[in-house]
C-alpha cells in the first residue's frame, strides 16, 4: 500500500462553525506560515517565506476556507493518512486545547 498523496475527493471536513461538510464546499488555503518581520528579514529569508513550503510527511497545519459561509479556519491534517485531526478558528488553538 503506497502512501496516499493528495486528498481524496469525497472527504468530509469539519468546519468549526458549520460542522461536517463535504470537501467540495471548501477551498484549500495553503500551509500556515508565520510571516517574518519584513523590515528585519533578509532577502533570502523573505524569499524562503514566500516561495518554500514544508512538504515532508506528517502532521500539517493548513488554511481551509468554507466557501458558502466565508469561514477561514486552521486544520491539522496528517498527510500520511489524509486524516483531519482537528480544525479550529485562527487564534483559537490555545482555548481549543
Amino acid at each position: 500500500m503506497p502512501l496516499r498523496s493528495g486528498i481524496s475527493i469525497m472527504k468530509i471536513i469539519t468546519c468549526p462553525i458549520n460542522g461536517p461538510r463535504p470537501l467540495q464546499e471548501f477551498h484549500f488555503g495553503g500551509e500556515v506560515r508565520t510571516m517574518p518581520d519584513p523590515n528585519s528579514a533578509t532577502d533570502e529569508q523573505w524569499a524562503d517565506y514566500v516561495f518554500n513550503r514544508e512538504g515532508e510527511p506528517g502532521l500539517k497545519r493548513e488554511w481551509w476556507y468554507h466557501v458558502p459561509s466565508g469561514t477561514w479556519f486552521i486544520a491539522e491534517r496528517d498527510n500520511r493518512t489524509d486524516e483531519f485531526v482537528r480544525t479550529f478558528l485562527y487564534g483559537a488553538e490555545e482555548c481549543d486545547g
Partner: protein
Amino acid sequence: MDRRLPPRDGEWIDRSQSVEFRFEGATYRGFEGDVLSSALWANDVRLLGRSFKYHRPRGVYSLAGHDANLIVEDGIRTNMRGDMLAVSSGLDVRSVNTLGGLDRDRLSITGRFGEFLPVGFYYKAFHTPRRLFPFYENQMRKVAGLGRINSANQRANSPKDYAFCDLLVVGAGPAGLAGAIAAAEQGLDVLIVDEQQRPGGSLVWQWADAATAREHLEGLLEQLAAHDNVRLWCGTQAAGYYGDYWVALVDDTHLTKLRAKSMLVATGCFEQPAVFQNNDLPGVMLGSAAQRLIQLYAVKPFDRAIVLAANSEGYRVALDLNEAGVDVAAIADLRRDGEATELAQRVDDAGIRVYRGYCVYEAVPAAGNKRIRGATICALDEKGVPRSEALTRIDCDGIAMSIGWTPNGGLIYQAGGRFTHAEHVEQLIPQTLSPGTFAAGRVNGVFGLESQIDDGYRAGLAAAAHLGSFTGDVPPSPSHYESPSSHPYPIIAHKGKKNFVDLDEDLHLADFENAHQEGYDNVELMKRFSTVGMGPSQGKLSNINAVRILARLNGATINQTGTTTSRPFHQPVPIRHLAGRSFHPQRRTPMNHWHVRHNAEMVYAGAWLRPEYYRVDGESRDDSILREATHVRNNVGLIDVSTLGKLQISGPDSVEFLERIYTGRFAKQQVGRLRYGLACDETGVIIDDGVIGRFSEDRFYVTATSSGAAAQYREMQRWAQIWNMDVTLVNATGHLAAINLAGPCCRDVLQELTSTDLSATAFPYLALGEAIVAEVSAKLMRVGFVGELGYEIHVPASQAMHVWEALMQAGERFGIRPFGVEAQRLLRLEKGHLIVSQDTDALTSPFEADVAWAIGKNKTFFVGARSLAILRKKPLTRRLVGLMFAASDAGTLPEECNLIIANDELVGRITSIAPRSTLGYPIAMALLSPDLAKIGTTVKIRVDGGSLVEAVVASMPFYDPENSRQNVQAES
C-alpha cells in the same frame, strides 16, 4: 444436447419463462434467470469466446463476473460479460474479440506464433525504426482493444442517486447477513449490497449440498426481515471507495452515491485457478463455477470430470458433481496427505478415486482446441515437481479446479487497510483496517460456515460499538482451525507454454520466468512489463499466482514480495453511469433576458454569462463589435458590468486595512472620490485591480475584477483575521447590479434621470456619490475605463432592469445603444488599460506591467511590499508594451498568446489584440523583452500558420493620451 438438470431446490432459473436469444447468429433457448454463459452451456455450447492475444478458445471459467474472455456486444452496448449478462427474449449478441466470427476466428492464427510473442514483444519489436511507428500503430489498433463503439448511438443519460446509512455491508453471504443483523439489532441504519441477483453469497451454491446451508440462509433472511432499519440491494456492486465512507454503488440502471458512516466488508474470496498445460480450454473451470452451474442454473457442467483439489471445497465439488450425475473419474489432490475431514469418507463412499499428491499435468484438447477429451495426471515429488515420466491418462470432458482462494479485498485497500499473507490459511488477510472499516468471513480468513456467521455477527457488533450504539464486549474473531483452503504453489511447470497464469492477457508461466530473467524482479515492475492483472478482470484470477511465481523466483516470501493494490472499479462500470449531465454552473445578471431578447451573443466569463456583442442582421461579428465601439466613441453606449466584484468595507480599521491590501494610499483619500486600487500577492505579483471609493471616514466601496472577485474577497477575509482588524467585509457582488454608461452624450442621458448635479465641477472625473437614478437609490461613480466620459451606476439587482430600461429610454434621442464585452475590451485596449490575468500572468509585477505609479510612496507595509522592494532592485525581464500593425496586415494577424521572436529566441508574447480598432489599424498589448521595448522598435511575431508578422512598439495609450475625452461636452 440439452445439459439442463431436473428442477432443483434453490435454482435461480424460472422454468415457466423460456426465452429465445441469439449468440453469434445462431438461435438458442434459455430460461429467465439464466446468464448468457449458463444458457449457452446448457445448450452444450462450450466455445464462448476467444482470448485477447492468441485468440484461444475459452469457455465458462469463473461464472462469477471475471470471465474476461467471454465478452459480447449487441451493437448498442459493448463489452458485456457473458457470466453477468441476463438472457432475455430478443437478446442478440456476438463475441467482441474475433475476426470473421467466433468459430472460425482468423486471428486464432496468432496462437501458432505464441513462441514468437514473448512477454515484452510489442515493446521491443515495434520500437525501431521510429519512422515506421505510425504503420505499426495502425496495424496494432486493428487487433488491439475489445469491442466496437457504435458512434451512431444516442446519448443515454443514466440517473444518479444519493443514499446514506450508518453501516454499509458489502456482500450478502453468511458473514454479511449476520453482520447486518447484529448491527440492526443495535439500532444502526444498515444497507446491504450484493452484486449477485439474489442474497446468500456462497450459501446458495457452495454449501448447497448440505441441508443446513439452506436452513441457515432462510434463518438469516428471516431475522433480517424482522428489522425495518435494514435495506438489502441485490444486483448492486460497491464499485469503489472514495474517502470517508463515500462508496459508489452501481446497478444495471444507475449510480448511487452513498455516504456511510462505516463499512463491513464481507465480500468473500475469488476462487483461484491452478496453472497447468491447457488450463484455459473450454471444459477446464473453477470448482465454484461448476457448482454455480449446478446449483443456480441447473446445468450439468460435464459428463465425465476430474477434480483437481487442494482443499475441502474440492471434495464438495466432487460430491456436487457426482450428485448432479457427472461421472467423477478422479480427484487429483495436490496435498500428499489428502483430505482429513469426513468428506474423504463421503467421497470414498461415492466411489470416487482419489490420487493423493497428484497434479493434473495437462489437459488434452479435442481437435480444434474447442473442448477437452481427457487429461494426464501424475504424482508430485517431495519438492512439488511433477513426475512427468509416469503419466496417467484419464478421459474426461471437464476439469474442476479447487485449489485456493484470494480475498476480494479491493474496498479494504481503497479505504486504507493493508493485507498480510497468513500461513495458517495460505491467504492474504487484513492486517490493519482503517477506523470504521470491518471485515468478516472469508475475506477475513475465516472459512467454516458457522465461523463465518459468528465472524459476521462479531463485525456487526464492532461496527455498532465504533458508532457508539453498542457498549458491551465485542467477541474475538473466530480462528481458522482447519487445514488451509489454499495451496501455496498450485503451479505445474510444463515445456508446452500453454500453462496460463493470466487468461485476460494470455500470460503463461515462462513469460514470468523470462521477465524475471530480464530483471523485472519487483512486483510492480513485473506487473507493468508483463501486463499481468491489467486485463478486464484486473488480476482477480491471476495476481496471487503471479506473486507466488515471483516470490519463488526471488527466493522470497509472499510478504517480502508484496502485492499490488486494487483500485476502483471492482467490476467494470458502463461509462454512462459515470458521465454527468451537461450541467454548467451559470451566473446571470438581472439584465440577462433583456440581452437575449436584443440578440446578444452570450459568452461565458467564468461562470457569468455576458453579451459578447449584439447581433445585427446582415452584419458580421467583427463589424458589430467595431460599430458598437465607434458608437461609444462618438455618441453613447451602455454595458452591463454587473459581473464586477463589489465589496463594501467598513469599520474603524478600514483605511489601515485597505492600505495593507492594496499598493496605494487611502488615508488622505477624500470622501466622495475614487482611487485606483492595485492588489499584489506576497510575491509581488499583480492579482487584482479595481476602484476604491470612499463614502465616509470609515466606509469604502471597492470593485474587483469579474474573474478575481471571489478570490480577492476570500483573501481579504483571511488577512482581516490574521491582522485581527476591526473591519467589516460584505461581498455585494450578487445583490448589486452595475451599468456603465459611456460616451460623449452620456452625461445628458443620465442627467435626465437624476436630480444630482452631474456637471464637471459638481461631479468630476473619479467622483463617487449616492444618487437617485430613475427613482432608484444608486451608487454613482465617474470612471473612464473605456476612455470616454462615463458613469458606473450600481443599483440593487432587483431594480437594475428598471434602471437599464430607463437609461435606454432617456438615451433614445441620442441614439443610445448597448455594447458587449468585446467592444469594451477593444475600447480599453485603445486606452491602454490592462486587464488583470489577461495582460498579466502568474509572474507579472507592477514594474513589468508599467503600473508602478500605483504603489504608494514610503508605505511601510502592504501585501507584496517586501517582495516588490527586492524586485525593484533587479533588472526587468519583460515589460507590457503596446504594438501597432500596418492596416494592411489584416488577415495575417497574430492571436493572443502568439510568440514574439528575435534571432530565433523567444522574446515575448501577445496578451491582447484588436484586429480592427476605431483608430483604423490593428493594435495589441504584449509582454516584451525590455531591450526591445523602446518605442518605434520593430518586432516579429510568429503567427499560428508559422509565418512572421511585423509590428512596431507604440506608446500607450493609443487613444487620447492626454485624457482630454473626460472633458468633452456633447453638442446638445
